[in-house]
């Protein structure tokens, strides 16, 4: 995690001499940057052009023994032998010979046009590269009482060509700014007497920045240069409430007394299971502050954000699996990380096989059942999060989008707009193309076509429901992964559909109440349901596989009190829902038994992740055969939900926002589909 700051190879101060032109005034360490130097004719030039200098001396090749005529005015024109005059130029370092410990890096002439550039580049950060190095500088041009009206200078830093220079940019800018203002105020740089002071400054910069990454140099009585290099990280992505942070280092151990209070509180709840809003709730912190804290941790790259683990999630492999599958660290770490204690660790090929069986369209639960995952003793949550963290597994989100039959609906826009939406999502896997076409023609009973498409939503078929046994079987059989139009027809035939008349919400609620009791006895075969309804005593055991890491916080005590403060208290939540119900369902809502049942439920620990107070397990859109329970309970959906069905918000986000688990959300989407003329499509992305 340590940051690696590239080493400064050289610092030099270049100026524009009004007779000689651009030249290096000082460089530290000496001799690294060669400068063409006229050699007095008395000595034979014995320094051949250094091998590293990139500048080739001229077409005319002359033996190095020939004297170079000096351009000094002391030599009369007549005396210089024209034949010997170069065309050959000797390069030497300003001090006469290259410093013994290092070979010269490059020739100044290559970069002089960019170190002392024309007016267009002055006042801007300029980085130029030679074959092996990068030079970063900030050339300045100051107008003033100078002989040629301008004073030009540049302080440049030389690095290896491959170095990452982003953290030095502010340093270079600041140095230039400070020196420019010193020059403007007191002519610090242009006064000839100050050359030793400037030299000292350059030296100190070089030493301090390389050794300590910070420096404080006083220029004169009033000015000083204060610099500190901060490692430069990219800005973190925005933190969403549904993200689950996973700690990459032991955060709690590093908490110190002077830490921000929110941060200290929040850190304790980062366990790879809690999502952000839950952390805020558990830590008793304001959600905005919690988001900030998580954002900070993301910036420093000490945590990673994954998504909420649910059995209804779908994952898919990414392209990087091609090489990651061969990486030793992946192979070695996966097994131990994902296996529950007490079970033999499966070998990597087996795990890879399991990973490869994950596809969009197949939920985790289905996958588990199909490949008998629980028997292998694999903690599915850790298994999937391993893949996500290493980068070869990707969550496939569901993005519900509402398509009205008529274009006058406020949510979905005109047909062209819808087309646009789909064009934007390059990897839209839904059947939107086809459905769109068909729907526009017939603003028909949403039931049929919606149904067709909703079939895409492969949610875990809950064996609990006796209501839709065939749904359970038919859902998994819908074609997965390839959502091209051809498959529509397949679904058509598969779907036992034309959906019969849906049972009313009331029926469903009652059904759920009934089922709930059955749930408690149920085995992990229906993990989702148990997730939803864990009774207080089972708080510790919860869902298989979770225990390996952190105990899923389900303590009721924790929940009840803070809930009252921070969130809608359960009763209020219920009543919120109820109030929304009224305009939507025509039937009267007798707030009796279903509600009571709800209320009964609520004091029980609500599952944090799903957060559905009493989601009906059944997603009854495929409910067969009417249930005979007539009591109508309105379990309609919040009106805000409708607004968010624009294909931009995935179900996790909606779930967290409305505090509803997937089953409930699913149900709401169904209702929206049938309530308004139009359809709700799910896009997998």
């Amino acid at each position: 995690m340590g940051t690696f700051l590239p080493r400064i190879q050289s610092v030099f101060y270049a100026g524009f001499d009004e007779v000689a032109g651009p030249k290096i005034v000082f460089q530290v360490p000496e001799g690294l940057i060669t400068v063409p130097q006229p050699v007095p004719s008395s000595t034979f030039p014995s320094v051949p052009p250094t091998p590293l200098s990139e500048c080739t001396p001229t077409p005319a090749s002359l033996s190095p023994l020939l004297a170079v005529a000096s351009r000094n005015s002391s030599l009369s024109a007549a005396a210089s032998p024209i034949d010997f005059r170069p065309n050959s130029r000797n390069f030497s370092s300003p001090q006469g010979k290259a410093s013994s410990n290092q070979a010269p890096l490059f020739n100044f002439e290559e970069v002089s046009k960019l170190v002392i550039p024309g007016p267009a580049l002055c006042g801007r950060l300029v980085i130029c590269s030679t074959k092996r190095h990068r030079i970063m500088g900030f050339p300045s041009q100051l107008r003033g009482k100078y002989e040629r009206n301008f004073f030009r200078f540049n302080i440049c830093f030389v690095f290896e060509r491959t170095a990452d220079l982003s953290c030095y940019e502010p340093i270079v800018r600041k140095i230039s700014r400070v020196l420019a203002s010193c020059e403007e105020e007191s002519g610090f740089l242009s006064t000839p007497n100050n050359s030793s002071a400037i030299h000292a400054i350059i030296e100190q910069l070089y030493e301090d920045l390389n050794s300590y990454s910070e420096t404080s140099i006083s220029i004169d009585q009033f000015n000083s240069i204060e610099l500190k290099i901060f490692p430069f990280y990219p800005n973190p992505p925005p933190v969403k409430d549904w993200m689950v942070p996973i700690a990459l280092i032991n955060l709690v151990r590093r908490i110190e007394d002077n830490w921000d209070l929110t941060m200290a509180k929040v850190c304790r709840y980062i366990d790879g299971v809690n999502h952000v809003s839950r952390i805020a709730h558990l830590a008793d912190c304001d959600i905005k502050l919690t988001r900030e804290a998580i954002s900070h941790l993301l910036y420093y790259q000490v945590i990673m954000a994954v998504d909420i683990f649910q059995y209804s999630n779908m994952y898919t492999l990414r392209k990087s699996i091609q090489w990651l599958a061969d990486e030793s660290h992946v192979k070695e770490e996966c097994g131990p990380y994902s296996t529950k204690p007490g079970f033999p660790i499966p070998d990597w090929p087996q795990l890879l096989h399991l990973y490869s069986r994950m596809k969009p369209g197949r939920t985790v639960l289905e996958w588990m059942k199909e490949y008998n995952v629980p028997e292998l003793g694999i903690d599915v949550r850790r298994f999937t999060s391993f893949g996500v963290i290493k980068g070869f597994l990707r969550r496939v989100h569901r993005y519900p989008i509402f398509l009205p039959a008529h274009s006058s609906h406020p949510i979905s826009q005109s047909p062209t707009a819808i087309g646009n939406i789909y064009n934007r999502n390059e990897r839209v896997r839904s059947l939107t193309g086809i459905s769109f076409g068909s729907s526009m023609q017939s603003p028909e009973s949403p039931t049929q076509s919606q149904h067709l498409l909703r079939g895409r939503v492969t949610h875990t078929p809950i064996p609990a429901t006796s209501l839709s046994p065939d749904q359970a079987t038919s859902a998994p059989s819908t074609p997965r992964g390839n959502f091209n139009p051809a498959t529509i027809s397949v679904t058509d035939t598969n779907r036992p559909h034309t959906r019969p008349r849906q049972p009313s919400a009331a029926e469903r609620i009652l059904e759920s109440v009934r089922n709930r009791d059955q749930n408690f006895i149920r085995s992990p075969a229906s993990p989702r349901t148990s997730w939803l309804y864990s009774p207080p005593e089972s708080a510790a055991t919860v869902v298989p596989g979770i225990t390996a890491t952190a105990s899923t916080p389900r303590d009721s005590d924790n929940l009840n009190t803070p809930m009252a403060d921070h969130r809608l208290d359960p009763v209020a939540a219920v009543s919120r829902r109820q109030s929304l119900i009224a305009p939507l369902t025509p039937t009267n809502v007798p707030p009796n038994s279903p509600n009571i049942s709800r209320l009964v439920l609520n004091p029980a620990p609500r599952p944090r992740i799903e957060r559905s107070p009493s989601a009906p397990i059944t997603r009854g859109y495929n409910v067969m055969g009417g249930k005979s329970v007539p009591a109508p309970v309105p379990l309609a959906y919040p009106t805000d939900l409708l607004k968010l069905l624009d294909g931009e918000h995935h179900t996790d986000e909606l779930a967290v926002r409305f505090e509803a688990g997937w089953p409930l959300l699913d149900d709401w989407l169904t209702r929206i589909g049938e309530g308004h003329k139009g359809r709700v499509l799910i896009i997998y992305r």
Partner: protein
Amino acid sequence: MGASGSGKTSMRSLIFSNNPASSTARLGATIDVEQNHVRFLGDLILNLWDCGGQDAFMDSYLSTQRATIFQHVGVLIYVFDIETREMNKDLEYYRDCLDGLTQYSPNAAVFLLVHKMDLVQEPKTLMFERKREEVQKASGDVAITVFGTSIYDESLYRAWSSIVHTLIPNAEVLNKHLNIVAAACSATEVILFERTTFLVIATSTLPSTSSPSESSASSPNNATSPTYTFAPPSPLDPHQMHPKRYERTSELIKAFKWSCSRVREEFHSLELDMYDFTAVLDEMTRNTYVMVVVHDPTIGEA
């Protein structure tokens, strides 16, 4: 090209960018090469390279950039500061540049400008002659033309008009046509100027004589009379036209144009109705101005 601080960029600023002479004091040193593209007569484009004169740049022109600098050159204009203290060094660089030029563009014309003449004490012609000899010697057998110039008087226009004149391919044709025009309007003289720079492109020959001080002579080998000699009006010239009228006209019109631009107006044309002559200056084509000078009092402006 020329030594650092010799006045190259000032000249360029004056003639090609239409700045007044006073504004050249604020120019900074030229970094490496600056280029101007000047459109002449519609489709003739002059690419003017103003090369910085500092040692580092000169060394680089003579070595690494040699081919770039000296290839495809039409005219080399080398500027000497008459007040330089390092004449030897200047001459040395000059010779090197001449070498480079003959190597890559042997057919280029060479003009030497001895600049900053306004700083020289009287007698100016003496100093000028001395310099001229020096540079003549340094040039070996390359044909050169020497002018003395200053940005504060019209001599600069004279020099540059000559320079540009060598580059115009059909100067003779233009002269002939101007003669025809002059005859047609019974004008004394018709002069063609370039629109932006107001350099003289061509003139009609005076009806009675071809004055030796005309700069329309296209042969560069003519020993041009020193600018600062005041030639007595030729006896053959009935109107006693001032020999330096062309450049003076250029200079004056340019100054007037600049004054107009300061009040955000544009100069279009000029008409002078004096008691002994009439002169009309107006746009001819998109790129040229023409001035017609008529001495016949009976002819009015059309």
